């Protein structure tokens, strides 16, 4: 059994917590030992947030160390760069191209770095970038960005978990009334990942 160290990074309020629960649930259903580390409290208020999912035969620490992530799912471009040092050299980075200005940029004290997505594409990092917000909107709700990204991950075959297990886990974690659009979001992400 292979295991995985996953980091989900983004901006507080983007749905990173739900994403970590979907991944944790799928890994559990696939028979792995799992730990999911969440963030609550002050940093949820629009700050930089990171949650960790680790699965494998036996997991001790719930955290992923610098240089130890097999996969980083980033909900926002700048956050992808912030946590890049956690990625293993052969790891995969999946990035939603959306940009959300942090307060120092809004206040004019700093600049949002230009060309993040292009630089990532040109670098030797194994990076997949997509406008997940656009795909989620097509599915009916921009908030499904998290499920689109999980679809991409599943489509890439990361973690060796079956598609149906993923879909079951999505179904267990999202509200019933949003089930259909989330499954659609997952499938669209999956197609994107599997044709990579």
């Amino acid at each position, binding site marked *: 059994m292979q295991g995985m160290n996953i980091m989900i990074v983004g*901006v*507080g*309020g983007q749905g990173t917590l739900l994403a970590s*629960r979907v991944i*944790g*649930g799928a890994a*559990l259903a696939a028979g792995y*030992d*799992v*730990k*999911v*580390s*969440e*963030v*609550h*409290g*002050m*940093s*949820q*208020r*629009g*700050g*930089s947030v990171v949650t960790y999912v680790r699965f494998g035969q036996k997991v*001790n*620490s*719930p*955290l992923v*160390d*610098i*240089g*130890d992530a097999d996969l980083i799912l980033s909900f926002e471009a*700048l956050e992808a*760069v*912030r946590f*890049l*040092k956690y*990625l*293993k*050299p052969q790891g995969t980075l999946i990035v939603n191209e959306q940009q*959300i*200005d*942090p*307060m*120092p*940029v*809004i*206040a*004019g*004290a*700093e*600049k*949002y*770095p230009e060309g*993040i997505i292009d*630089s990532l594409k040109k*670098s*030797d*990092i194994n990076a997949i970038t997509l406008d997940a*917000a656009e795909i989620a909107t097509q599915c009916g709700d*921009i908030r499904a960005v998290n499920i689109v990204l999980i679809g991409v991950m599943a489509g890439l075959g990361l973690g060796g978990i079956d598609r149906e297990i993923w879909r079951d886990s999505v179904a267990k974690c999202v509200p019933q009334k949003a089930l259909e659009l989330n499954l659609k979001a997952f499938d669209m992400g999956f197609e994107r990942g599997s044709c990579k």
Partner: protein
Amino acid sequence: MKRLMLGNEAVAHGFRDGGGTVASAYPGTPSTEITENIAKFDDVYSEWAPNEKVATEVAIGASVAGARSICAMKHVGLNVAADPLFTVSYTGVNGGMIIAVADDPGMHSSQNEQDSRYYARSAHVPMLEPADSQECYDFTREALKLSERFDTPFLLRLTTRIAHSQSLVETSPREDYKLKEYKKDFRKYVMMPGMAKVRHQVVEKRDNDLREFAEETELNRIEWGSREVGIICSGIAYQYAKEAYPKASFLKLGLVYPLPEKKIADFASQVKTLIVVEELEPYFEDHIKKLGIKVIGKERLTLQGELSTNMVRNSFADICADIVEEDYRQDFKQPAAFGNIPQRPPVMCPGCPHRAAFFVFKKLGLTVCGDIGCYTLGALPPSEAMDTCVCMGASIGMAHGMEKARGKDFAKKTIAVLGDSTFIHSGITGLIDIVYNKGVSTVVILDNSITGMTGHQHNPTTGFTIKNEPTKQVDLEKLCEAIGVSRVRICDPFDLKEFEKVLREETAVEEPSVVISQRPCALLKNVHYGAPYAIDTEKCKKCSSCMRLGCPAIVKKDDGIMINNALCCGCGLCTKMCAFGAIVR
């Protein structure tokens, strides 16, 4: 069947399955979900108390009456509950009782990173520390039983990474617990000198009994590996150390007070080098050194923040060189650097009522004694309008202290600012102090109809219980009047002009005054502001007035100002900043 559970959720299940029936708490990250999950059980009574002291007293009362009980709080909450803690140690319990306390190393959402283990030692109350969600479940059940066996409440210590990590839990059937008989026993439960002196002897004997128990209990577990290195640890530190050095020998402590001195000495004698891995203070290390045992610990590990697997690995690499996994990479290639990138600190949400209040505080140049809550973000740019923040309720006492130090004129430029829940928690007594001692301070209660920062819990001012049942609502206006404040004003902070006028008037008068700033948290389900706003670029003069609010939805681009319609909640506060009518729907 195994389920993924947060550590806090596992404590809740362990409490119910262990026969617990009464739970009381004040919310505080990272402890809140213990009680939120207990509230989902129909067969367990649960409540939000006004503060941690009351919550603890409720749990004591329930225990004395024969039920198994729990109170839950964050580390700083235990300071508030310290008064009952030290004396319930003397009275002991009837039904099993747990005081769950969640420390926050790294201060993810706290004002300090105190180590609660010292409370156990100093109050002579035994403490358990689980290392994952399964242990959260098991230890909670165990603590309820041990509490009755040793006639003492048990502290259950979590840290953020235990409380807020999900891992697998297998539950077992609920214990059929019958209320124990309630017997009046004033020698046990009335603590005045004559009785307390006797009970202090009982506490000392109990400590000795627990020390013996510590030697034999499986809560303190030895995992033999290589005898080259022995590691003593507990809680999350065990997980980091185990992952860093799986081949080492471990003494994993589940009962962290009192400590098994013989077991420690025995373990130490059988390993070549002894290491202690613990977060925050050298609590184990000092004790072990006192026993005359050579041990390596904090000279290589920080007292600050959290540990990690890598930190543990790097700190003892030379000692553990012979037992490390061969495939571990010491160096890794850092991915391409992007230079310095902007930080992303937490901010007040779009639509937050506090944003309007702090805009006015800044405009008036007030000295703001602040408090604990979402509004503490008012200290950060762009408002930077908070001068102090120490602990729950401190704003009021500190504003009064400032007045007494610098006089009434200084007080006319000073306010105390705190939320509705924080005012109930420990602001009321501060206000009484102002009135009683002829102070003139102005207190602003930011009433957003909820306890916000911890994730929307009800409190005595919201009119609903933890189970969303309607209940009596504390009337803040009448409460302040009853205390003796004759000037109580209620004002909507989104009415910027009126709010400013009220503040000017109330800070100017030489008597105590309270301004209740009333507008609900924008994240509440019943708050609907409507469609997002946009900038009419033809009318916009790019004066940046709207930017002064520091709303994350209003962004300055090279070609002008725009409103991010994915973030804007339509609150309309910015329209009041624009003199040109350029912000429209």
